[in-house]
């Protein structure tokens, strides 16, 4: 009896703490989204009120869609994020496979060399990266961003994926070899499908900093036609903000895509981190 009461109390306390932090975590998002649907007057009069019919207003959204090249920014961000993510996952998995599957001279050293990048941030090389991109004529192109983000994501991807690939059974791979599969076929048809959870983990940890990065778009691709959404949202935030509806609407729209991507990957995420590497 006493046991049961203690565990009840504990459950309630646990939920209380989690709900408190959930409220703290979501409150700013709530404020943004709610006010993006209100008229300007209502935003200021009562910021916390829900957008009831009397001050429901879509003026913010219509302004954003009419004025700035919002879809252009959005498209740039999507292209950069998806292409970089694809390259990081493909090249990262290939290198991880080479490191975990084969013994060759200098394999340890190669592993260490590739892991170095986890600890040292690519931003410190910005000065020289800018010079390379200027020399290659890549300034103000999406290619420049994709190259940088691919390089930035690779070390962690190789590290996590090679830990996972060590757990794929040798018998399976050898069975494939006996059946005459090439090393490439073994990698693409046997190993890759088995490390899907790890790929999802890597995808989430790679995707977030790319989507949200302000540093490299600001330095490598500030031109109007290659702006990413993170940089582009700043258009609506002048030093003296005039169009509050538009700002709030732009920010609400910017939350959506990354949230959708996260939800897609997150089903695999916990399984991914639990099963290996980062534990």
């Amino acid at each position, binding site marked *: 009896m006493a046991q049961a009461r203690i565990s009840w109390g504990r459950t309630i306390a646990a939920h209380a703490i989690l709900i408190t932090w959930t409220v703290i975590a979501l409150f700013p998002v709530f404020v943004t989204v709610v006010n993006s649907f209100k008229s300007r007057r209502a935003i200021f009069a009562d910021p916390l009120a829900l957008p009831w019919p009397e001050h429901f207003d879509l003026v913010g959204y219509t302004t954003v869609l009419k004025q700035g090249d919002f879809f252009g920014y959005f498209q740039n961000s999507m292209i950069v994020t998806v292409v970089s993510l694809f390259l990081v996952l493909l090249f990262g998995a290939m*290198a991880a496979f080479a490191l975990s599957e084969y013994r060759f001279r200098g394999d340890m050293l190669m592993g260490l060399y590739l892991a170095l990048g986890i600890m040292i941030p690519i931003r410190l*090389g910005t*000065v020289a990266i800018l010079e390379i991109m200027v020399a290659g004529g890549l300034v103000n192109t999406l290619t420049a961003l994709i*190259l940088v983000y691919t390089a930035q994501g690779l070390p962690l991807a190789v590290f996590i994926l090679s830990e996972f690939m060590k757990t794929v059974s040798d018998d399976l791979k050898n069975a494939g070899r006996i059946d005459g599969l090439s090393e490439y076929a073994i990698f693409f048809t046997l190993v890759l499908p088995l490390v899907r959870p790890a790929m999802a983990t890597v995808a989430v940890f790679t995707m977030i900093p790319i989507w949200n990065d302000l540093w490299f778009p600001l330095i490598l691709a500030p031109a109007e036609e290659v702006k990413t959404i993170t940089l582009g949202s700043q258009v609506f935030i002048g030093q003296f903000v005039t169009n509050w509806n538009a700002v709030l609407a732009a*920010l609400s729209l*910017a*939350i959506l895509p990354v*949230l959708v991507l*996260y939800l897609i990957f997150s089903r695999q995420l916990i399984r991914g981190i639990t099963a290996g590497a*980062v534990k």
Partner: protein
Amino acid sequence: MKRPVRWHIAVFLAPAVLIYTAIMIVPLFGTLNLSLFNTGPDGVEFVGLANFATLFGDPRWADAFWNALGNNVWFFIVHMLVQNPIGIALAAILSSPRLRMAAFYRTAIFIPTILSFVIVGFVWKLILSPIWGIAPGLLDLVGLKSLFAPWLGREEYALTTLALISVWQFVGIPMMLIYAALLSIPDEVLEAAEMDGITGMSAFWKIKLPLILPSIGIISILTFVGNFNAFDLIYVAQGALAGPDFSTDILGTFLYRTFFGFQLQLGDPYMGSAIAGAMFGIILLGVCVYLFGIQTRLRRYQF
């Protein structure tokens, strides 16, 4: 018999190694190299470590540098004292068996982490703004309005406020990693402890915490590297001048201003590289302290 050359290994490694080397390693060394040069009377010349001497010792540069470094250290301390304990606590609660809605809480708490700095900086500025006033209004509701201050606008609070906003945003990462570590502790270990009468809080302190120490180590070093590279939040919330009066200036914003110039200040790639070099040294030092001083002492358990 000589083994044939295994070309496929090279094929698997080549794309990753090429991109990583060309875009990451070469520029990193390029930056370090650039920091050894400066403009002299007859053009650019090799100056050895003179840029670093200027950075650390010349009052025109040193004040700003030490100010930024000090602020950065405080930024890191706030994260270690607030973000990681909260993350661990949330993960410990989430991982308790038979908790309903765990997936919902996990996703909700992780949402700030996926938001862009532009959103985070802007929304918190609004909430804390004395004019729009959600924060003063909320404090008024609980009768604590007298506690309100323009936190982002006052030199003595601004940096701590920004650090706490950053904590709010990133608490999801330690939570996720620790949660995964806690889930991977085998049930047998916990059941054995239960047989010995160790349950609840004492099970956490005596059994789980020692087992997740390596994960806490990884989180600490990731926090360290992340904090000493921070730039975006400060830039979005306070601008490149990191106001009020440089009180929120950290190494990232200092590097940006120095290298690219801002308003009346001209860009200086050589001193900028020197700052990047100093940051490189600081991060390397921290990573070495962790690898050789802490990690080797952590005991790992295999299940």
